[in-house]
């Protein structure tokens, strides 16, 4: 059924259709509306046979999720930013133990400086934690990916993060096609766990493993993610059969046939990029877009195949590996090893900086002429940066950086008392 609603509410409804049995969460912007929505549904019993557990922190949220998932309950939680960092130790444990928890990450920047706006620093900081990470382009895809995520997680016994851009998607009202319960039931079978904590048949989960078997357990986790590379496109096809639309998969090329330049990105910025590429195509540029939906496992082979006929690629990412440049770009470069392609990294949209068609067009035009720097910070205010660098050269006691830049920008309340 088509409806116009907030992204968070669309996701809450989709999660409810997946019949979760335990939801535990701690509020943090911009994720909060999702679990609030689910909390209301549990309370008014539209979501039956589900326990909603209020916990005291994100660390507790993931710890409770581990416990409930280990008893065989379908388990869901959501978080963002500092919340994800605070639960980090338990996040690694959930995947290490092979527990198929599904978690929404409403992507948000990480402090300091504290910032509540969108970028991908939070989930990408957890890139090696053993969870799968799927990135949604629209609210429709966010909703659909949750339904696919439960099935994928439970089949391969690994947890899945569904990543959606905080505010840009979570707080946007747009059209979504909400599935029927019968469709979700047809797609998503009941959870049949490989391991269950059951007093009737006692086992222990979480043994200490020494050098004799630790590497093998880790390898098996890697092998399961590699196995997911095959399963993800199959699930997208099965999903299409029941729900009638394309959602998910590993990658999504757009106008890449005959493209000399392919710009690669994840999440909601793909929409703006598609509009940009349409305009540039009209002006005669041979350019396409490649969306990466599955960041973990990373689709090395599929990305290489999508890039095999282009001359250059640009990775536009909302994340920064301080000291090297891009995170997604490093992964893409791994995929195209020895293909002889020119590759550019563009860091954009950090901390909610708007990514505009105007800036993208200018940047991609430069890339097409191979005049782009290898690492570019889109729309960086060089004047502000250079002023601070100059200050630090001439003075020792320059004080805190964030406050200095806010003062230069004339932000009220940043006065030096």
């Amino acid at each position, binding site marked *: 059924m*088509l409806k116009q609603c907030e992204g968070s509410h669309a996701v809450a409804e989709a999660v409810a259709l997946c019949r979760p049995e335990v939801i535990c969460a701690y509020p943090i912007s911009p994720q909060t509306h999702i679990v609030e929505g689910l909390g209301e549904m549990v309370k008014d019993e539209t979501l039956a046979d589900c326990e909603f557990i209020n916990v005291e922190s994100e660390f507790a949220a993931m710890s409770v999720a581990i416990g409930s998932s280990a008893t065989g309950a379908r388990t869901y939680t959501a978080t963002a930013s500092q919340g994800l960092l605070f639960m980090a130790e338990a996040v690694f444990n959930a995947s290490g133990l092979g527990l198929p928890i599904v978690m929404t990450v409403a992507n948000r920047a990480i402090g300091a400086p504290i910032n509540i706006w969108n970028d991908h620093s939070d989930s990408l900081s957890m890139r090696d934690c053993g969870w799968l990470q799927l990135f949604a382009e629209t609210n429709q895809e966010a909703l659909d990916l949750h339904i696919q995520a439960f099935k994928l997680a439970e089949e391969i016994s690994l947890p899945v993060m569904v990543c959606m851009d905080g505010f840009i998607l979570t707080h946007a009202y747009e059209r979504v096609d909400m599935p029927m319960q019968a469709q979700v039931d047809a797609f998503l079978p009941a959870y049949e766990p490989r391991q269950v904590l059951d007093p009737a048949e006692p086992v222990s989960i979480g043994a200490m493993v020494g050098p004799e078997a630790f590497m093998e357990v880790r390898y098996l986790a890697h092998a399961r993610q590699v196995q997911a590379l095959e399963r993800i496109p199959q699930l997208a096809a099965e999903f299409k059969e029941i729900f009638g639309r394309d959602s998910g998969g590993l990658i999504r090329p757009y106008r890449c046939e005959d493209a000399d330049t392919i710009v690669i990105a994840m999440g909601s910025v793909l929409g703006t990029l598609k*509009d940009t590429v349409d305009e540039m195509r009209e002006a005669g540029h041979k350019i396409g877009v490649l969306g990466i939906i599955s960041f973990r496992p990373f689709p090395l082979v599929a990305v290489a195949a999508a890039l095999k006929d282009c001359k250059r690629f640009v990775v536009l990412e909302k994340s920064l590996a301080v000291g090297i440049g891009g995170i997604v770009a490093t992964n893409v470069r791994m995929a195209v090893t020895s293909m002889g392609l020119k590759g550019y990294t563009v860091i954009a949209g950090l901390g909610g900086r708007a990514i505009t068609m105007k800036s993208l067009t200018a940047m991609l035009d430069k890339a097409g002429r191979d005049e782009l720097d290898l690492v570019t910070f889109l729309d960086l205010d060089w004047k502000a940066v250079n002023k601070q660098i100059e200050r630090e050269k001439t003075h020792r006691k320059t004080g805190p950086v964030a406050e200095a830049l806010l003062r230069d920008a004339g932000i009220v309340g940043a006065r030096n008392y």
Partner: protein
Amino acid sequence: MFQVRIHGRGGQGVVTATEMLSIAAFDEGRHAQAFPSFGSERTGAPVVAFCRIDDKEIRLREPIMAPDALIIQDPTLLHQVDCFAGLKPDGYILINTNKSFEELGLADLIKHHHAERLCTVAATDLSLKHVGRPLPNVPLLGGFAAISGLIRLESVIKAIEEKFSGKIAAGNIAAATEAYNIVKAEMEAVHA
């Protein structure tokens, strides 16, 4: 694509207004995208929210920098924020005030705009009268339906009924309808 930017203050229902506008457009079978200029909103602080309406899927996610229409929920913002930034030359302006554009000191600005696309309506007064609270957002949507012709008053009423219920819904419907009629009459006066 038609792009609307709403300026107001925290607590005036700016974000809710764009959401309701998107629901009204959706009810007419169109694609619509509403989103706030995200921030840690505080009561009384300047707030901006956006709504795009189109006949095809809306993929663009940048803030609206060149709006086709502006709704200004609080005229005191005119001295604080560049509300008119990027407005298209043939754009619509609807301001919540009981003053005229000239009295607001906007005589120079409106010289270059189509007179029939500029309107004021005392939406806070209408809200106080019908709802009992100073919330200008919903009556302004009624006024916007009249000035732009982009959405029907019936769709605004449907959106009100989706967001509110009981007395609040009834009061807002009355306020939106009266604002619609006031703006219609103002426009007819311009044309006459």
